[in-house]
């Protein structure tokens, strides 16, 4: 798994690639913690290059969402690959997380926050 984080108009934008699983999730959680510690309140996760996410990965997204809520922040997700999208549907997380087809669309929606 590889993680690239960049600042896009005040949004901490994550480009993750590879598989988010029980063995790789620690690295992602570390990157999330850094964002929270730096009081970044807007986070975007681009899943275009993520080919799988397991239960530990999903739990890390929930933890991020909770941590952001505590600092009045929000997380958006975009570009879900087909596999990731079906896993979100199976777990019903697609009904809860704010998911956009493209990164541009997601970034536009941060303006209201």
């Amino acid at each position, binding site marked *: 798994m590889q993680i690239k984080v960049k600042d896009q108009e005040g949004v901490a934008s994550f480009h993750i690639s590879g598989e988010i699983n029980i063995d790789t999730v620690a690295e992602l959680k570390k990157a999330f913690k850094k964002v929270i510690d730096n009081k970044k309140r807007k986070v975007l996760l681009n899943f275009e290059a993520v080919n799988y996410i397991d239960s530990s990965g999903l*739990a890390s997204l929930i933890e991020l969402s909770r941590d952001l809520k505590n600092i009045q922040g929000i997380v958006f997700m975009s570009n879900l690959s087909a*596999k990731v999208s*079906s896993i979100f*549907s*199976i777990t019903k997380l697609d009904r809860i997380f704010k998911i956009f087809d493209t990164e541009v669309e997601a970034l536009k929606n941060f303006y209201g926050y």
Partner: protein
Amino acid sequence: MATKDKKSRYFEYKEKIRRSYGQLKKAYEEVQDSYAEMVFRMALVAEYKDDATGTHLVRIADYSTEIGRQMGLSQKDINYLKYASVMHDIGKLVVPDAILKKESGLTPEERELIKKHAPLGADIFRGSRSALLKVAKLICLTHHERYDGTGYPNGLKGKEIPLFGRIVALADVFDALTSRRPYKAAYGFNEAMEMIKEQSGKHFDPDVVKVFLSCRSKIKRIWQATQDIDSFVKEKAAELHVES
């Protein structure tokens, strides 16, 4: 001059081939991605029939994958296990709802009909040339076989049961034990672990049990993660007033 032209043309062709290969690889990955998506969504249909939560499928995939990994399976086999394991109960699609959702008092005939979900699931994939669907067929057919030969549908014994079936059998039972059902409460993690241990050599392959017990902390993390997902979904559904 001619040599230089030849050389530049060579690099041009090389670049074209490289680009075409990249495009082909991307297209192939897209097809694979859609294929796996369909597998998950198909499995979800069977879950709707059974009233189980979606995390059941994620747990089966994660437990099976972890066991496969610890048993030293190849990455290819681990991937087959990950995607095919979610199809284990697809045969329930052809079992009537009235029987599937009956909480108690199943007649012997109804019990037999429920047992049919194993061969019926395998029938769905019969004749497929896809390696993944062949594994799905095996798993459907053998995930209710027992190591001591008392399982169904064929009463296979020991290593006659394919390894994929032996792995998913344990993952499925462990998940059933730790899940609440209309007719029973969920067993705690430790209690369920003990029950699996107790069934080594009876219901389950001792080698699979040994590996499962050795990765206890990871199994617990998977179990905990899916509990977190379920409670988060429940909590948010209540907040958003959407049907969970």
